[in-house]
Each structure stands twice: as C-alpha cells, then as structure tokens.
C-alpha cells in the first residue's frame, strides 16, 4: 500500500485518538501538577434560617469566595510539582510503616489500601476468568449441535447485564437476610453478615467479576475452537494422545494468542475495578484505585473537589495498568517478531 493511501485510511482514526485520548491525557497530566485555589475572604454575616416554629437569626463569621466584576470566583493556579502525588502516596508514612514491618500501618493509607485490593482482585480473577471461559467453551463445543444455540445464549446473559446493575442484584441476594444469606443461615445454623466482613465481601466481589466476565472469555475461546485443525486432532488421536494431551499440546497452543488477548483485556478492566465497590457498598472495608479517583472527583455539598489529587490518582492508575501489561505485551511482541522472520 502506498504511504498516501495508508495515511488517508489511518488519519481519521489518528485524529480522533489525538482528540479524545491524547489531549485529555495531557490535560490530566497537567492538572496533576497544578492546584487551583479560590481566594477567600472572611465577613460578618447575619444569617436567618427556619426553626420549627420561629426563625433563628444569628450573626456568624462566614468565609466566602471573592468574586470579580463578572461574578466569577477569583482563583489562582500554581505549579505544585509532585505535591499531589506525594499527598496520595504519603511516602514518609509508607516507608516508616514498612520499616517497622507494620502491615496495618501501610493499609491505613488510602492509596496503598486501594492498590492492595486492586492488585489482589485483578490477579486472583485472571486465571479464574480464563479457566472458566475455556471450560465453558470446551463444554459447549462438545455439546450436541441442536442445543448449542440455547446454551450459548444462556451463558452469555451475565455479560449482557450492565455491571453496576449486576453487582446490585447480587448484593440483594446477600444483604441483610437476602435469599442466599437466609439459605446459608438455614444450612449452617449461624447468623451470617456477608457485607460486614472484608474477606467475605472480597470473595463475593471476585465471584461477581468472574461470573460477569467469564462469558466474554468463553465467546472468544469458542470462536477460536472452531478454527482448530481437525487433521491435527485426528493425528493426535492416532498417535494415542489422551483427551488432556490433545488439549495441552494441540488446542491450547492453537488458541494461545486468544488467551493472551483475553488476559490483556481482563487485566485492563479488572485494574479499573469500580462497579463492585459501588454495587456492594464496600467502601468502609475495601476500596479500589478507580474508586479513589472517583471519590476525589466527586464534589461535596459545598462544591469542593480535589481535582489535582484526582488527576494524580488517575495517572497512577494508568501507570499501574501499563506496568501490569508489560509482561504480556512483551510476549506478544516477541511472538510477533518471531512470526515475521
């Protein structure tokens, strides 16, 4: 293909990527190094608010933002370097706690607590998603042709549900005396409070994620299984390969690129875990990095929000995703080079 033709095809997509991915990223990066402060003044104000029967009026000292002639708040933006990152990571406290080998001391810092959960969540669910996906795909592939359509449809259902809605539905099964909690209590004859323990919450959240994402892995693997060369399988059978050996030496190597693909997508998605925190309202016990960014970005009742720290948190999340993807991307790159020679 001529370069001009290639450029003409790629240009629109490049332009959109610059506009919607690169530009916001640069803006977030910039904001993470800067803090915008509003200028405040203190004034004596008489404030009257309703009591139940009569009005209560009192003079109070009110701190309020200074407005310019246009009615805009006067604000100054200053460069703070890595200040926002330092506030998030609390390196001094972190190092001190590490030095004392005090794990709890590390876990009381929001960022590290979130990182611990996010990493555990991502790395525990990864093999389960890939394994479950492969199992379902193999099962469907060997099911009778007449019922495959129905099985595929049912297996896909969890993936179709909007993540937050799915999480909330599962929460309802367990919260308080939800159906499943009641059932467990009846079987075990003890009082169970699933949402009150960090470990049971964490287990439930991982279970939910696997339930939700495994169908995606299944569909991808199932498509890959259709392309497995039947001659190779037959030769393996003639050579006396068992079912497991056929899977291990013929099928899996064949769909390996798909496994890497599913793993990549899952790592990226799971590292941004968020719906589970909201759905299971776990923020008292467990928080994720994405939730931390969201929380910093949410304005409080007085309209304040920590944009700079939220930007820093978002950048750190992105760096984390890149780091976690490096091994897999490296493998893909090596395979690609080996293939092209």
């Amino acid at each position, binding site marked *: 293909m001529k370069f001009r033709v290639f450029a003409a095809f790629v240009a629109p997509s490049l332009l959109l990527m610059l506009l919607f991915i690169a530009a916001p990223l640069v803006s977030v990066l910039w904001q993470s190094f800067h803090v915008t402060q509003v200028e405040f003044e203190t004034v004596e104000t008489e404030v*009257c608010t309703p009591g139940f029967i009569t009005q209560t009026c009192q003079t109070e000292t009110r701190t309020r933002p200074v407005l310019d002639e246009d009615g805009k708040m006067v604000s100054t933006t200053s460069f703070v370097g890595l200040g926002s990152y330092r506030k998030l990571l609390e390196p001094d406290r972190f190092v001190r706690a590490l030095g004392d080998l005090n794990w709890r001391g590390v876990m*009381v810092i*929001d960022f590290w607590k979130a990182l611990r959960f996010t990493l555990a969540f991502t790395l525990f669910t990864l093999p389960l998603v890939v394994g479950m996906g492969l199992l379902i795909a193999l099962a469907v592939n060997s099911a009778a042709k007449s019922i495959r359509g129905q099985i595929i449809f049912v297996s896909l259902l969890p993936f179709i549900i909007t993540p937050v809605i799915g999480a909330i539905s599962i929460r309802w099964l367990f919260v308080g005396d939800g159906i499943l909690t009641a059932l467990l209590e009846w079987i075990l004859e003890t009082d169970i409070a699933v949402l009150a323990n960090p470990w049971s919450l964490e287990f439930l959240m991982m279970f939910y994620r696997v339930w939700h994402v495994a169908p995606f892995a299944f569909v991808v693997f199932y498509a890959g299984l259709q392309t497995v060369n039947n001659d190779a399988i037959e030769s393996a059978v003639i050579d006396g390969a068992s079912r497991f050996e056929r899977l291990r030496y013929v099928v899996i190597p064949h769909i390996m690129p798909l496994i890497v693909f599913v793993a990549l997508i899952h790592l990226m998605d799971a590292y941004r875990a968020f719906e589970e925190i909201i759905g299971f309202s776990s923020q008292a016990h467990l928080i994720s990095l994405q939730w931390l960014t969201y929380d910093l970005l949410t304005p409080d009742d007085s309209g304040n929000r920590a944009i700079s720290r939220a930007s820093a948190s978002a950048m750190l999340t992105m760096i984390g995703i890149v780091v976690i993807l490096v091994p897999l991307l490296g493998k893909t790159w090596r395979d690609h080079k080996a293939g092209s020679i």
Partner: protein
Amino acid sequence: MRKYIYALAGGALMLGAGGAWGGCAFDNTVPLKSLTAGFEAWKAVTGAMSECGNVEAELDQEFRTKQPAAFAANPALYQIGGVSNGTFTPLYDAKTIRPLDDLVAKYGGQLKPNQLITLDGQVWAVAMMVNAQHLMYRSDILSDLGIAAPTNYDEVLAAAQAIQDAGVVDYPLGGTYKAGWNLAQEFVNAYFGHGGDFVDADNMPTVNNQMGMDTLALMKALSAYMDPEYLASDSTYVQQQFQQGKIAMANLWASRAAAMDDANESQVVGKVTMAAAPMGPAESASTLWWDGIVLAANMSDEEADAAFRVAMEGIDSEMVMANNDAAVWLIDGYVPGMSAAGAAATAADGARPYPSATWMGLMHTALGNGIAAYLTGEKDAATTLADIEAAYTQAAQEAGLL
C-alpha cells in the same frame, strides 16, 4: 409507535399528578426547568408546579453534584433549584442564585417570615420544610419490657441492652451508618451532642480532642447493637428494618416518619413513636435541616417572574393539604401530625442548624471517609481523628480555604 407510547405515558403521569389536588391558579407560558432532590416531599412540590404547564421537573438524588455547574451556565440550565442548608452554600457563594426580595413582595404574600432564608438582609431561598434526625422507637416493645422512652444516649444504650437481653427483635438499634455521607452525618449529630465545634475562627479543624474521642466511642458502643452490616445501611435500609419489625429504635430522618404508618409497606403501623433526638452529654445530638427553593441568577427577569410564581404554586397550602404527612412543612395549612412530633421536640431541645459553610463540606467528606476505619478496628481513635484533621487540612489548603 414509540413516540405514541411516550406521549401516553407522559399524559398518564400528568393526569396522575394532576388528579390529586386542585391545579394551578395561572397558566404558565414560559418554559421552565427545575432540578431538585427526589424524595417524597419534592415529588409533591414538583408535581404541583407541573400543573401550571411548561414545567419540566428533574428529580435526582445526585442533584448536588450537578447544581453548581448547571446554575453557573449562562443562561442557567435550570431556572428553579431545590436545595437544603448543606447544598445551598456553593450556589450562594458563587452568586449563581438571585435575591428574591422583589418577587417575595410581589407574589409571596402567603409566605411566613420563618420560610425566608435571609443572608445580609436579602432573601436567597424560600424554605418549605424542615428535617432532622430524631429518635423513633417501638412503643409496644419498650412498654412490654417496662423501659421508659430514652431521652439521652446512656438511656439509649441501657434500653438497647435490655431489648437485646429480651431478644424480641433481630437488632435493638438501627443506624444510618453507611460509610460516606451518612456516617459523617451521624458523627456530626453526636459531636454536636458533646458540645463540639468542627473548626475554629481560622477554619482550622478542631475534632481531635476528648469530645471527638467520646463521640467515636459512643458510635462504636451503639454499633454493637446494630445489624453487623451497619456500614452499608442508609436511611432507606433503616426505614425498611423498622417497617419489617427487625429493629426497635433508631435515629432516623423526620421525612421517613410517615413511612412507618404506611400500611402498604409497614408491618408496624401505629407501633412506632416519634421522640426528640437523644441528648448528648452537652446538648441535643441532632442537626436541623431545611429544604427550599432557589432561583437561578442567569435568566431573564420575565423568566424569574414566572419561575417564582410556579414555585409558589408548588409550595402552596393546597399541596400541603394533599401531602400533609410527606414532610414537616413550614407552609400554612400544615397540621403537625404524629410524625412531626420528633422533629418539633428536637428543635425545642435546641438542636443546632447544620452549618452552611464551605468548610463543612470539606469536613463532612473527611469524616465520611475516615470514621469507618475506627469502627472496623483498623485504626485507634487518636489516629482516626488525626487523619481526619489531616485530610480536612489538606483539602482545605487545596481549595484555598487555609
């Protein structure tokens, strides 16, 4: 076809809203939009406003995150806003809402002075209702066990122990202890009850003291009598626990009181008594809230005129008569029923108004994120309070307040 169905649904909605009460005194021709919270009282008020025609009401519990930006736009995206003393601050500080004195003089004859939110001699909002968290208890259980209605937290704890020993309900206490805003609000109530103040004259935090420690200790003591999942339980959850007879006492919002006697939902109709919020060691452990209406600054005077008239129709006596128990109304025609007794008694005990100030938003967030770690045992009280002060200071410095 789809359009037709929407039109039908819309028509049915309007009919439903219109059927309940008399209608609007004038025919509104100016297109108006309102953004308010979504609880029962706002449904009633925006329903009454819609009858005037050309009013598009948006009811959204996340209104607080939308309102500041939507009102700062020029022209404003909504002409009418619903606020409370917590969410009033950013709009007032940015002056994206307009003073209402002229309009009150022109169309607000029926308003009581008590309804006018006045700062520096100008009216900025018209309040329609007050709200407070106060004690609700199962009078049948307490009288069966021979316990007098608790008036302070020592008595609440003693009563909770007695109810626990008797084993008549799943959990003696309910609490709106969901981590975040709700949990912080419970701390605010109890800390005021201990006589504390959150900041000093220079907006520096003042929670890391004995009163703060006592407040945390009290919250932990109370939580021992609650459903173990208390850190995930919000007002709706506590209301349902009450309605299903699972709890015997809770400090719950006055706006939830009427639901206890709603025979469609509640199994404890007539058994829940409303009382004043328990007293802390120093004063009433509750805060007074108001909800009311503001008008955007960025709109024409004609629009403001129409918006105010519509708003007055929304909070008139007719609406109150049709929805008497939906809230503790400040409007003429309201008959304080049994459900208002708790809020009235709490106000009479001298509960402080929830502070409308920039620092309060920052403090509320710091508390909401910080307290759970103490209740779960991750941090001790001193570390918790020191971290809350540090989080507040950090956020306040970033905002420019310190």
